[in-house]
């Protein structure tokens, strides 16, 4: 069981680095979306710093969302998924590994990068930490939940947008807690409840979503 996880991690990791573009793209995307806002809003520093945290969260959600579509597509098209379905190894564990590497390449990377962007938005230093922790706790859940949607839409030709439509509503609670942390801390209030909520969501997601993903794949692949 343990080695299934490692085996799949290894494979995904290999694939990730085979095309280094894969590694930097979600990050670039995150940065670009974030930077679109200053272009489209009236230019006032105070306005920017007030909405900065929210914008970064929304951009993170969108960057992850846009990378989801490709998550199972290639494996579906070339028949690799069929082979895994037929294999006695645990599919949920394998999928957990896949999602884990996906998170490393998207969520983790952009979390690490978020402080830089925060500075561009002139977000105060203490709130930068809040943002960082929120993203660190929130993005794995985004990858996990998103993978369910990716699995459900893998056999559809234009799944990309449908994926967004079914997954975004499920992302909203995470967004509310994550972005809420920033609003709270800017008011000087405690952020404990949000942190607990994010941890609870993450725990649930790690334990339950692998089964949902595996189940969804078994359903959609025929």
């Amino acid at each position: 069981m343990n080695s299934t996880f490692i085996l799949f991690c290894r494979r995904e990791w290999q694939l990730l680095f085979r095309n280094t573009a894969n590694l930097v793209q979600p990050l670039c995307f995150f940065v670009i979306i974030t930077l679109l806002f200053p272009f489209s809003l009236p230019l006032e520093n105070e306005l920017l710093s007030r909405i900065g945290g929210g914008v970064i969260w929304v951009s993170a959600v969108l960057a992850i969302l846009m990378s989801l579509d490709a998550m199972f597509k290639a494996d579906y098209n070339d028949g690799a998924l069929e082979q895994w379905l037929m294999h006695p190894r645990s599919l949920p564990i394998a999928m957990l590994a896949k999602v884990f590497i996906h998170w490393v390449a998207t969520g983790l990377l952009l979390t690490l990068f978020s402080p830089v962007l925060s500075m561009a938005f002139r977000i105060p230093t203490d709130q930068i930490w809040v943002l960082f922790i929120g993203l660190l706790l929130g993005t794995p859940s985004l990858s996990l939940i998103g993978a369910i949607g990716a699995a459900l839409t893998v056999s559809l030709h234009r799944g990309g947008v449908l994926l967004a439509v079914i997954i975004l509503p499920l992302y909203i609670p995470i967004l509310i807690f994550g972005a809420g942390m920033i609003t709270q801390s800017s008011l000087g209030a405690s952020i404990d409840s949000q942190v607990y909520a994010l941890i609870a969501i993450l725990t649930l997601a790690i334990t339950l979503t692998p089964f949902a993903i595996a189940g969804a794949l078994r359903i959609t692949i025929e």
Partner: protein
Amino acid sequence: MKFLSTIWQFLNRSFFRLGSPREFYKISNYVTPVFGLLFLVLTLIGSYNALFVAPADYQQGDSYRILFVHVPSAWLSLFIYIVMASAAAIGLIWRMKMAYIVAICSAPIGATFTAIALATGSLWGAPIWGTWWEWDARLTSELILLFIYFGVMALYYAFEERTTAERAMAVLAVVGIVIVPIIHYSVEWWSSLHQGATVFREGGPAMPPSMLKPLLYNALGFTFFYGYILFLRARNMVLDNERKSKWVQELVNKEHNKEAH
């Protein structure tokens, strides 16, 4: 003990009987009109009482009467989701065709009630809160519910193969259930414009009986309306899905002969 197991067996049998499309169709022949009738009677009584019997509110005047539509629709929007998700789960676990049909037929009805709750809430909010929309926890979570209903339907219609479509839809419906507690408890967990639980709360309803009664009549009436529409839609879907089977062919022939005579 024996008695209990007999009951269990009976329930089990009837459960699986309902699970067969053919049995369902037979039963629905009787149940559908009954539901329709109950809906009409209850809603008429409820609405009469709501409009003419219940007193005007001392603060809000007559505008509060929108409550008699708003609250039942809001409850139903949640109730239908629970029914849909449970049916979906049953379908996934026991591979029961009827459960999927119930789930997919519930989705548009649920979405409609959600839309009605949103619309009436907005209409009501305009005079009460001075705004028809606010990005407040209760309201936004209800809006998310609407999107989840849409997502469930979109997913279903995106697949060409019916069996795949219904099972994929079922997974999403089950996953989406998390929104229901969020909506219900949103008023407690976050400070909200929307008022807290007024009817189903500890210590009984905080509402005079003259208002409560028509509300409950309407709520029950709306529920039967849901049942009525659900059965109508499910009947159609059963016929469509089973159009190749013998019993539907026989049914069609019978109808045909009737017309011929």
